[in-house]
């Protein structure tokens, strides 16, 4: 049986692997990687689109009949800039979907939670389907959900670091209490990281560097596809999480807490 599809803002995705399109060595490498990954949603940096008519080898190679575009606001540093970028993206790419990404710091590219919440409120009012990229902050994710975010995209570890699910304890809380899909974004360096995220209950993952910068991007894209599928299937099959965690009382043990229920009157 195929894993259940993911639904974001009413749109169904059978693939739970989203891809970024940066850092590929060529448009052709990217095209083949997208194909091998089985993805149905790809992010594109708005900076790429605003080239004033000049052909961008990468953008032109994305077959929009196969992949839904998710423009991102990478490079913006405030809510104001992000709203401007979003409007430009909507016009240029004819989609109201948006990965909201605001990082004022150019060194670590850490998302700004305050500007992100403000921008989400503004963009939802303007009719955007907003998927904000944030720290693995459970309260922030609930606030974004209330502001109307269509999904939340907490980071697994610093972007581009390939360190995997360093934020695991917080992702678990976000997943447990979210009413919108949770897409783990940033820091996933290996298919096993992606599998672990899906096993944990994340609805999808977004991967870029680990595939684009691999020696064989196409091979790595295929590997991530398998990792994501494995993780999701394991989740749906009823993964035995920490089976020994509570330590079941053995059958011959006494019942100190409940033996009274067998007494008279029960």
């Amino acid at each position, binding site marked *: 049986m195929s894993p259940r599809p993911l639904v974001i803002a009413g749109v169904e995705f059978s693939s739970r692997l989203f891809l970024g399109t940066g850092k590929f060595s060529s448009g052709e490498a990217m095209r083949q990687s997208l194909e091998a990954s089985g993805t149905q949603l790809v992010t594109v940096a708005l900076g790429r689109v605003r080239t004033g008519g000049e052909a961008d080898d990468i953008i032109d190679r994305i077959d929009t009949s196969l992949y839904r575009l998710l423009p991102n606001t990478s490079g913006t540093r405030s809510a104001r800039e992000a709203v401007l970028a979003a409007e430009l993206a909507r016009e240029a790419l004819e989609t109201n979907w948006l990965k909201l990404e605001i990082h004022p710091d150019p060194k670590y590219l850490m998302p700004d939670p305050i500007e992100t919440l403000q921008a989400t409120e503004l963009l939802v009012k303007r009719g955007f389907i907003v998927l904000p990229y944030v720290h693995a902050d459970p309260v922030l994710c*609930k606030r974004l959900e209330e502001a109307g975010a269509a999904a939340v995209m907490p980071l697994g570890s610093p972007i581009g670091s390939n360190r995997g699910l360093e934020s695991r304890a917080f992702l*678990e809380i976000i997943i*447990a*209490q*979210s*009413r919108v899909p949770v897409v783990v974004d940033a820091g996933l360096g290996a298919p096993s990281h992606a599998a672990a995220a899906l096993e944990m209950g994340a609805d999808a993952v977004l991967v870029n560097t680990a595939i684009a910068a691999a020696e064989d991007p196409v091979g790595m894209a295929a590997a991530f596809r398998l990792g994501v599928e494995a993780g999701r299937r394991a989740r749906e099959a*009823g993964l*035995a*999480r*920490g*089976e*020994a*965690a*509570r330590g*079941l*009382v053995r059958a011959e*043990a006494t*019942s*100190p*807490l*409940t033996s*009274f*229920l067998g007494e008279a*009157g*029960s």
Partner: protein
Amino acid sequence: MSFLDEWRRHDFASVSRRIASKTAADVRRALGRPRGSVDLEDFAALLSPAAAPFLEDMAQASHRDTVERFGRTMRLYAPLYLSNACANVCTYCGFSAHNKIRRKVLTDPEILADARVLKSHGFDSVLLVTGETARVGREYLSNALRVLRPHFSGLWIEVQPLPEEDYAQLATDGLSAVMVYQETYDEAAYRRNHLSGPKADIAWRLETPDRLGRAGIKKIGLGALFGLSDWRADAWFTGLHLRHVETVHWRTKTSVSFPRLRPHEGGEIPVTPFDERDLVQAACAFRLLSPEAELSLSTREGEAFRNRAFRLGFTSMSAGSRTNPGGYASAPESLEQFEIDDARSPEQVAAFLRSQGYEAVWKDWDQAYDGFARNAPEALVS
């Protein structure tokens, strides 16, 4: 999405069947989950007949999780019945409009007289209870809260479901928490038992916790009246409701109560089985579903049972309860809503808890920052 929509997606009879079909393997898997990661399918397994042989495992896990989260404490509270006037006709309740009893609505001096008795026992949290009629609507409650606010740090209500704006107003009058029990999530049983009056509107009641959450009420109490329908399915729906409140109204605290049908004035109705063993199973299942929810153990239960069951996941107990308006002072002989079973005084209950290594907590600490608690600023800086 409101809870009403969520409720409509689940058929009560199908949920009953799904619970009945759970296996020992499902229960083992549920018990294997780390704390806080039991989902609603696991919860169904923990409520199922297949969980019966695992009751000791559930009790130990529930006890451990409760101590880790709450410590060895038990909050004591008492109900204060303000009125037995009621416009509803319900098959199971002594206050039902068809019952020929003298109706009473406490005046300010009568409220204060009961309050003084409760204070003298040491209570600092009180649950105000009324029937459902316009006579005891928002204005009456606002007044009662203002009258009692100087004397108690925790003021909860268990009254008719109100509009969102009324709850918002009551919050400014000092309301801390609202208990609103669905009685049953089985629509057919609900209609059989709520024959007329405002309570016959099941949708209005189902959406009450959503209105409370939107109004910013700090704690919402849920529960089903076990005995009206299949208790396992009713408990599961209560869990669904709990999860809904926890995730949608995530700033709000939750509590769950386990009332079960007791003898009352007005005749017998068929009661579906729900015994003490079932009550323990339900409470432990709720604790494993939610490490954070407060679980309340009623004085409807007997002393012997309460003395053993209190450590299996519960965090609050009523004590010395009278369930009639004026029952503590002005009208001790008036008709009770239901009979209580544990007749000990609050002091006796507290002493028993101490003998078991538990601290009795009288104060509602949650209210320390809401601007109402007496001496709150001093307590904060000293």
